[in-house]
């Protein structure tokens, strides 16, 4: 009897001790997350919610806020200059994402096939160089290269194409593709090196046997490289698409959205609306649409690459 009693209290006290310890551990665990969560909440999550909130008001940032419902969103759809930024954003996806990834695949497969040694290593490093400099610097450098007396026109004149020289970034039709070329210059090395890393993981026997069968570069590229690198291609697309849609630095420095609105992207337009025209509500509506746009574009890419991973 005494013994039983004793063991019963021991069990009870051990149980309370365990649950106390577990509870303590949960609290300690949450304390570990707290600093990161707090910073993230104050400077990212709350601003995210505030962006949505502001988008329903007319506000100059200082005076009183006037509730306007969905009017700011209607304005974005009605004013061609605002809707045009979304169209331009999709063009930038082509220049800052699809072309660098496509070209990167070609370059990576060429390095893999003809330059596995020294030349390939040098090419990797050199092509990667623009990725580490600030995008602002890339914008300034290319702003000069694409100017009327700049290098691009000098080369065109030298090869007898003097008739098409122009101030590329000041031309309504050519400004956006010119900005696109800057993006290719910056991103090609990143995509190449990323895809090349993926290729080195592919069983070399696959390439070897294809070559024994006499497969040329193109067959090898279509039959082995593209299907087996689908995961890396997905990653590369995700990263570059988010950056393309959120583009700001290169465009701001090289054209500031001009001439006219021909290179204005959402990032630039948000900046101009908010910080020079003081239309906080309208700028926020565009910001919210940009955030929705990113999610809409990213989800299918993620789905595809996740499926492959499994």
């Amino acid at each position, binding site marked *: 009897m005494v013994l039983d009693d004793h063991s019963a209290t021991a069990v009870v006290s051990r149980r309370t001790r365990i649950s106390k310890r577990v509870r303590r551990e949960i609290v*300690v*665990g*949450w304390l*570990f*997350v707290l600093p*990161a969560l707090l*910073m993230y909440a104050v400077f*990212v*999550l709350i*601003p*995210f919610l*505030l*962006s949505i909130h*502001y988008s329903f008001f007319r506000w100059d940032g200082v005076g009183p806020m006037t509730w306007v419902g969905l009017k700011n969103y209607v304005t974005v759809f009605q004013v061609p200059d605002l809707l045009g930024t979304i169209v331009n954003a999709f063009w930038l996806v082509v220049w800052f994402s699809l072309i660098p990834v496509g070209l990167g695949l070609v*370059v990576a497969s*060429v390095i893999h*096939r*003809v*330059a596995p040694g020294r*030349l*390939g290593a040098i*090419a*990797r*490093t*050199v092509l990667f*160089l*623009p*990725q580490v*400099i*600030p*995008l*602002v*610097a890339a914008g300034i*450098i*290319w702003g*000069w290269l694409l100017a009327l007396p*700049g*290098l691009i026109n*000098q080369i065109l004149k030298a090869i007898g194409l003097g008739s098409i020289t122009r101030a590329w970034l000041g031309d309504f039709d050519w400004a956006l593709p010119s900005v696109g070329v800057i993006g290719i*210059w910056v991103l090609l090395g990143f995509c190449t090196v*990323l895809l090349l*890393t993926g290729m080195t993981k592919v069983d070399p026997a696959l390439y070897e046997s294809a*070559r024994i069968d*006499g497969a040329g*570069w193109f067959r090898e590229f279509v039959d082995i490289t593209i299907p087996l690198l689908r995961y890396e291609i997905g*990653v590369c697309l995700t*990263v570059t698409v988010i950056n393309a849609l*959120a583009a*700001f*630095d290169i465009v*701001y420095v090289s054209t500031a959205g001009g001439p006219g609105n021909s290179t204005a992207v*959402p*990032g630039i337009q*948000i*900046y101009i609306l908010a910080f020079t025209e003081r239309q906080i509500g309208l700028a*926020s509506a565009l*910001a*919210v649409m940009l*955030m929705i746009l990113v*999610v809409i574009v990213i989800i299918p890419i993620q789905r595809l690459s996740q499926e492959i991973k499994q």
Partner: protein
Amino acid sequence: MRVSRSELWAGRAFLVSLMVFTILPFISIFTTALHPSGTVPNGLDWPANPQWGNFVEAFKVAQMPALLVSSTFIVLAVVPVSIIISTMAGFAIGLLRIPGASVLLSLFVFGLTLPFPGIIIPIYILERAIRIYNTRLAIVLPLIALYMPFAVFWMRAHFVNMPTEISEAARVDGATTWDLFWHIHVPLARPPIASLGILMSVWTWNQFLLALVLVEDPTQRTMAGALGAFQGHYATDIPLLCAGTLLILLPTLIIFILFQRQIITALLQGSVKG
């Protein structure tokens, strides 16, 4: 190797031409920087009389020493704090697996898709309200926060793969959660922490939008932000602008050439995990 000779040379020529495409812009601004200040030279002409003094002039007008100090200060404030708090959070989510860990993880991952310009307006208004606008803190605090989605995700990916035996053995020896973290798991996490540190340093140094919107004084900004201001002032003096740009690029280029292997690896792992 069953690659034909002609293909070999075609491929090499292709690679070399791409390398030229990558390098020429740097050479062009270098030769331009050596022309007399205020002139408009051609894109790739070697000057008759190289003006090395342009670099001295640009060094002075760009206030390089002040810029270096400011950028270094911002990096030193942002990177260690980001590393410590994201490592702690990654440890709790990935290894301790506290209740709610998966919700927390999704919350942080959500931040990876947020485009920067989308939240810049509220950050600006918030900083005016708490009176840190136009100080270095205005860049430091949001930057730490903006790195959290990636950094927590990154550190969690490391901790979630750590074998549980290590922690269990330490627990038996009576280690507290803090001991477990500080004395056992942080030393083991050095490689991912180092990569994260490199990545965040490069990103901070090159950060432009936050600097542009939140700090007016170029000498309180990051390198990229200061470069933007420099361009605003000297847009018409092309040789001086090129000289200044090269000077501002120099630290990044030197660091890249010294640590290229680590930087490339870090940036790649960063994108694959992200």
